[in-house]
């Protein structure tokens, strides 16, 4: 992981694309479509039904599904749900955007210059090895229990796949592309804006596609750990106050967020790839 032979840049990219584990639905082989057959939902339905029916005999911290909805309604009525959801979405979006911008910039730098790459690699690799959970206490020390702290943690976790994918994208840029833009006498700005960045979009968005679920999970993590606003904070607080139904309702919300994020990002990425790196 530290000083890696030349291979890992590409392998890293591969690993991220192959990461079904974090990729979310939609990364199955093309022949399966975007989602496995819907009849596969049956076990889940059976479990939930059984849960509902057996609710009386289950301990109080496993409230039946119907109460989850009620819990959410309660939260909404108390005016807690919407602000929390907003806070989570804002942290997620700002963090992911910052990660995309910074990841792209760093990726460009380390991709374009092997000297910069060698110079920064050990530092970046060590930073990457830091589990986000361990970053939280440092971030709170430095930034306090604030929205900024949340964004910093999310960004620091989500930046890596974008950085690595951008780096390998830059390395795979065809030299002809650069020669061509020079020969047409594009100025530096146009060269970046019209040729290099568009050519890198597929790589960058591949990174974003992997980074987005990470950003969401880390948003929840930081909220649960620090209880600064957001759905994660509400989950922690509701459990602590024995509001189990609310807790499950919120977990459901988190699940919905994650499905939504995956669907959005997959669609976006498919679009970018189709437009910018069409079949040859």
């Amino acid at each position, binding site marked *: 992981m530290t000083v890696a032979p030349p291979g890992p840049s590409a392998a890293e990219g591969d690993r991220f694309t192959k990461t079904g584990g974090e990729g979310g639905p939609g990364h199955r082989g093309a022949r399966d479509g975007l989602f496995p057959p819907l009849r596969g939902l049956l076990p889940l339905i059976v479990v939930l039904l059984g849960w509902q029916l057996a609710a009386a005999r289950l301990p109080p911290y496993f409230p039946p599904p119907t109460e989850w909805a009620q819990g959410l309604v309660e939260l909404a009525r108390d005016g807690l749900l919407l602000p929390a959801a907003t806070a989570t979405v804002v942290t997620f979006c700002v963090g992911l955007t910052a990660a995309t911008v910074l990841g792209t910039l760093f990726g460009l730098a380390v991709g374009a210059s092997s000297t910069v790459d060698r110079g920064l690699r050990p530092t970046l690799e060590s930073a990457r090895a830091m589990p986000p959970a361990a970053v939280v206490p440092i971030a709170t020390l430095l930034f306090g229990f604030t929205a900024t702290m949340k964004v910093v943690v999310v960004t620091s976790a989500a930046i890596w796949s974008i950085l690595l994918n951008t780096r390998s994208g830059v390395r795979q840029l065809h030299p002809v*592309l650069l*020669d061509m833009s020079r020969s047409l006498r*594009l100025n530096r700005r146009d060269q970046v804006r*019209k*040729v290099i960045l568009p050519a890198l979009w597929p790589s960058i968005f591949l990174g974003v596609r992997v980074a987005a679920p990470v950003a969401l999970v880390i948003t929840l993590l930081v909220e649960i750990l620090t209880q600064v606003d957001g759905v994660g904070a509400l989950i922690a607080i509701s459990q602590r106050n024995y509001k189990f139904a609310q807790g499950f309702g919120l977990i459901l919300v988190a699940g919905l967020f994650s499905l939504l994020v995956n669907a959005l990002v997959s669609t976006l990425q498919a679009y970018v790839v189709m437009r910018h*790196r069409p*079949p040859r």
Partner: protein
Amino acid sequence: MTVEETTPPGPAIDGAPRAVACRCRDTSVDLSFRGGSRRILDDVNLELLDGEFVSILGRSGSGKTTLLRVLGGLLEPGPGSLVQFHGESVVGPPEGVVFVFQNYAASLLPWRTISKNVALGLEGRVPRREMPSRIQEALGMVGLQDRAQDYPWQMSGGMQQRVQLARSLAMRPRGLLMDEPFGSLDAMTKASLQDQLQQVHQRTGTTIAFVTHDIDEAVFLSDRILILGGSPATVEHDIRVDLPRPRDQLATKELPEFLRLRRCVYNAIAAPGG
């Protein structure tokens, strides 16, 4: 198909002596590799006249592409070299010179339509109003007016190379540097592109430096053929091609003069230092 046998031999354009479009004096190039550098070109001297079609031939690795890149300002020559285009020293890609790459697929932008690809070099230089006519004119010269709204990846290789040519022509270049532009195309496509290039050349009077591996192609298209050889390479031969124009794929290639030149070029390449 008949050849105008009456056309006198000699340069295609008659009259006053032509100006020098491109000049190299004592040009050398060192390329650095991992752990050292190697001299690729040494003491290259050449002059391309305005409107001339000059092919550059040589064996693989003889530095043809390197020379072309130097002429195009994509590669800086070694100290003491003099490279000029219409009297101006070449520092970076000179105005009025466009490079045409062999790898058309990599040089076209897949996210732009054909007309947008052609527009790439014009944007910010040509007034917006003039843009459509410039694009149409360029596409017209390569016979692709009807495909303006398609994307490069919807086209065959030959068409993509035409798009690249159109993109260069849209700049109304005084010089075209073509690096094995037809190298990866099949024989039929190649022939039709050669014809098209010939027409473009006649029509625009652009100076063209054309790197190729293909002896027939060089003889068929050129006014003059330069042969690189040696290591580091220099210009070893400078062969005039006085075949009548316009040239025809069948008739021209059956002329005794064509066959003689073909043999002459072949021998020049085959015999090192000859």
